C-alpha cells in the first residue's frame, strides 16, 4: 500500500509556556521550540504498522519553510521512506483551503492508496483533511481511531460521543484524519535523526506542483486572522495566582467558604 502522510511543524505545546507578543496578534515565538504536530505522529506510526503488515511505502509531506524539513526527518527516522517539502514564498499565509490545495497537487503527482492527516494541528481547525478529500473527490473519515486494512478497502473505526465505537468500510483511495490514541508512536532519538540526516528531501514549489500562486498563500486566503488574545475574565471566573502550594491553599479556602468542603 502506498501511503502519504501530511504532517506539520508546530510549536511544542508540552514544552512551551505561551505568552502573547507585544502586538497581541500572535504568540511570542522567540523562545518557542517546535516539533511534529502530535496527531501527525500517530498517523505516521499507523502508516508504519500498515506497511509492516502489508508492504508498500510511506511518504511524508509538509507545507512549510526550510525549517519544516526537521519534522520530515524526524518522521523518516521513525520509519517513513520518503519525504517531500512543499515550500514556496507564494505558500506563505495560506489558510486551510490553501494548504489543502497545495497538498492536493502533490497527491495527484503520486499514486497513493491512502492519505492520512492528523485530526487537527496547533490551530485546532481540523479542516485540511476534509477539504483535501473533497478537492480530490476521495471518501473521507475523520477522527479515526482504528484501521483494519483489507483488499481494496479498509475498515476504519471512529469513536462516537458517549464512548461508543463505530466501524465503517471505506473504499480506497481515501483520506483519513487520525485521532491520538490509535496506537503508541515509537520513540525517535537523536541517533535516528542523524541516520537520515543526509537523505535527500526534494523541495517543490508552486511551479513544480502546477499550483496557481495566486490561488494559495496570503493572496488566495479566504479566511484571515484578525485578532489573537487571551479572553477577558468573565463574571464568576477567577485566576488563582502564586506558587502551586499557594494556589492549592487559596482553592481550599474558597471551597471551604462556599461550603464545598
Amino acid at each position: 500500500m502506498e501511503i502519504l502522510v501530511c504532517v506539520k511543524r508546530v510549536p511544542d505545546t508540552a514544552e512551551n509556556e505561551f505568552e502573547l507578543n507585544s502586538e497581541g496578534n500572535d504568540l511570542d515565538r522567540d523562545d518557542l521550540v517546535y516539533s511534529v504536530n502530535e496527531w501527525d505522529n500517530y498517523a505516521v506510526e499507523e502508516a508504519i504498522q500498515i506497511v509492516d503488515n502489508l508492504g508498500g511505502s510511506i511518504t511524508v509531506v509538509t507545507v512549510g519553510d526550510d525549517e519544516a524539513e526537521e519534522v520530515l526527518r524526524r518522521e523518516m527516522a521513525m520509519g517513513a521512506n520518503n519525504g517531500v517539502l512543499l515550500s514556496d514564498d507564494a505558500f506563505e499565509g495560506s489558510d486551510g483551503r490553501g494548504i489543502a490545495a497545495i497538498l492536493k497537487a502533490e497527491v495527484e503527482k503520486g499514486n497513493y492508496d491512502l492519505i492520512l492527516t492528523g485530526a487537527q494541528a496547533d490551530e485546532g481547525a481540523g479542516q485540511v483533511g476534509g477539504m483535501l478529500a473533497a478537492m480530490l473527490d476521495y471518501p473521507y473519515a475523520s477522527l479515526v481511531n482504528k484501521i483494519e486494512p483489507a483488499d481494496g478497502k479498509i475498515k476504519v473505526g471512529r469513536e462516537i460521543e458517549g464512548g461508543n465505537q463505530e466501524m465503517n468500510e471505506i473504499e480506497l483511495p481515501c483520506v483519513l484524519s487520525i485521532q491520538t490514541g490509535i496506537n503508541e508512536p515509537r520513540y525517535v532519538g537523536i541517533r535516528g535523526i542523524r541516520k537520515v540526516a543526509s537523505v535527500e528531501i526534494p523541495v517543490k514549489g508552486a511551479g513544480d506542483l502546477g499550483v496557481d500562486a495566486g490561488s494559495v498563500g496570503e493572496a488566495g486566503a479566504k479566511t484571515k486572522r484578525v485578532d489573537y488574545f487571551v479572553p477577558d475574565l468573565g463574571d464568576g471566573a477567577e485566576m488563582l495566582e502564586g506558587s502551586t502550594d499557594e494556589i492549592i491553599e487559596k482553592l481550599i479556602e474558597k471551597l471551604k467558604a462556599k461550603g464545598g468542603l
Partner: protein
Amino acid sequence: MSMIIAPADYLLFGFFPTVIFSFLLPVIGVGLFTYIIARRIAPLVRANPDYRFDNIPERIKNLIVVWLGQVRQPRYMLAGVLHIIIFAGFLILSIRSTSLVIIGMSDGFVLPGLDGSLGTVYNVMKDYAATAVLVACIIAAYRRGIKKPARYAVPEKYGHDHTAEAVFVLGIIATLMISESMFEASAVAYNYQTLGDAHFPAIFSLAWIFAKILGFASLESLQGLHIIMYYVHDVTFFFFLCFLPLGKHFHVITSIFNVFFMRVKKGNIKPVKYGVSDQELDDLESFGVKKLEDFTWKHMLDFYSCADCGRCSDQCPANAAGRPLSPRFITIKARDLIFKNYPIKSGVIYKSDKLLVEDIYTADEIWSCTTCGACEQECPLGIEYIDKMVDLRRGMVDEGMVPQSLQKPLKALEKRGNPYGKMEKKRADWAKEKTFAQTHTVKDLGKDVADTLYFVDSITSYDDNMQEIARRTSIILEKAGVDFGILGKGEKDSGNEVLRFGEEMLYQELKARNTEAILESGVKRIVTADPHALNALKKDYTGLPPVKHISEIVAEKINSGVLTMKPCKNRDKVYVYHDPCYLGRHNSIYESPRQAMDAIAGLTRVELEKSRDRSFCCGGGGLMLFYEPEEETRMGVLRVNMAAEAGANVIVTACPFCLVNIQDAIKVAGKEDEMEVLDFTQLIEEHLI
C-alpha cells in the same frame, strides 16, 4: 598377613585389573568435560568485547576478599557460613581428590610437598574438612529441601523450581565425602587387623568414625569396600565435574573468573561498545543488547556463574514493590536461552528471531529497574545487572520501544535540557524567590567568576518543592565561606538517568554542553546537592574539576570549625538517615551526612536496618519519576514503613528525588501525622549558627 590391595593393583574376579578403570575414567571424564566447556565457551566467543584486564591489583584484591575470603557470604548468616564451610572444604579436598585419581593408577602416590610433615598436617585437615562439608551438606539439604526459605522459590512465570537440582548436588557432594572417607577407613581397619597398624585418621573425623565402625568387619568385605568406594568416588568425581557446567553449579568452576573480572569501579556505565569512542558512535549499526550475542562475554559469564541464591532479588526494591522484575531471573532466563541455543548434544547453534525483550524478557521488566545497585552489592559472585539493564534499554531506545510516559520528558530534555519542558531562561528562577533574594545573591557564572560551581540540576532548579534545596545549599555554601556560582541557563540536565535509560546520544549531547559550560566557567571545584548529578559528573563525565556532595563540604567545614551547629531544635523527635543510592552505594559517601547530623547536639538519631550499602531505594530518580510502572506498592511506602519500624519520626535524606518519593510515600501510607521527611540541607541550614 599383608596390607590391603590398592585399586591400582587389584584384580577384579581374580583376573581383571581395575587399574584399567583408573585410567579410563579420567580419560572419559576429562574428555567429556573439555567438550562441554568448549560448547559453553562458544557463545562467549561470539559475544561483544569487554575490557576486563585493567585495574589488576584491584582485581586480585577482589579475588582474595570476595572469592577466597567469601566476604559477602555472611551477609546472609546461616547460608553464608554453610557456604564458607563447603567452599573451604572443596579447596582443601580438591588436592585430595586429584591425588586420589592418580592413586588409582599408581598406589602410594603423594603430591610433591605433601610427603613430609606438611602431608601429615594436610591429612588431618582434609579429614576434618570432609567431615565439616558432610555436616554442612546435611544442614543445607534440610534447609533447601524441608525448610525451603522463601527466597529460593521460583514464581510460576519464571519456570521450574530448582530445589531438586540443589538437593541432588548436595547428595553428590555428600557421596564424595562419604566415599573418600570410607576408602580411607576401610584401609585403616584392614591394616589394623592384619598388621596391627594403629595409624588412625584424625579423631572424630568422618574417616575415624568409619574406621571405628569397620573395625570388626571381615577382611574380604573391607577389601571389597575399599575398591568399591574408590570407584564410587572416581565416578562421582568425574560425573560431578561434567555435571557442573549443566546448571547452577557451574559457579564452582566459573566463580574464580567471574570475581576476577567483576566490576571494579562503582557508579559508572559501560560504553555502548568497548573499543568504540564517543565520536565513533554514529558509525555503529545497532545500539545496545537486542539479541543474546549482543551481551559482552563477561555478561555471559555472569549468566553461567549465577548460583541461584536469590540474594539479588531479595534485596531488589523493584521486586519488593511487586514490579515485574526479579534480577535473579534476568540471569536465569538468559542462561536457559544460552543452553537452548547452544545445546551440548548437537554442535548446532540456534538463533532466536525475536528481540530478547520480546522473547525472554518484557519491556516493563527492563524499565522497572531504578539502577539502585542493591543486587550488585549483594552478589557473592560479582554478577552485574546495571550495565545489562542499560544495554537492554539502549537496544529498546534504538528500536523506538520507549514507553509513552518517558517519551515526553526525553523530548523535553532534547529541546530544553530539562525533563519538564520548562524554559532554559527560568532555570535560575529559584534564586529570585522574594525572601531569599532580599538577603542573598547567587553569582551567574555566565557573567561572573567564582572558585566553585554549584551544579543545581533539573529537579532542584524547576520543581517548586525542591527549589528550597537550592536556596538552602546556597546559604550553607555562603556561611561556609565558599566562593561559588551557578551556570544558570547554561546548565543542562546532568543526564544521569538519560544515560541509564539508554538514550545514549541525548546523554552525549547533554554531557558535551555541560562539559563545555563548566570548563568555560573556569571553576576549580564543583559541588552539588543532587547525588544523581554528583554521580554523572564524577563517574560518567571526564575532564572536569573535582566534584563533591554538599554533605561532604558540610562535614569538612564542621571538622575545621568553619561551620558551627546549634543544639537540636526538636529534641523530642527521632531522626533517621536514609542513604540515597547514588550517594551511598554508587559513591561510597555514608559517613559525611551522619557526621554532620551528629554534630547537632541533642539530636537523636537511629539507624535503619537496611542502611549504608544495604539501603533500600525510595523509588528512583530522574526519568524514573515519569515512568509509570506496574507495581503493587510504592518502594517509598515500604521505606517509610521501615523508618517507622526503626522508631523514627523524621527521615533525613540527601537527595531531591528521595525527598519527592518519600514525601509522596508518607501521604500514600497515611502517615502524615507521625512521619516527616527533610532534606539534609534543610536540617543543616536550620541548625547553622
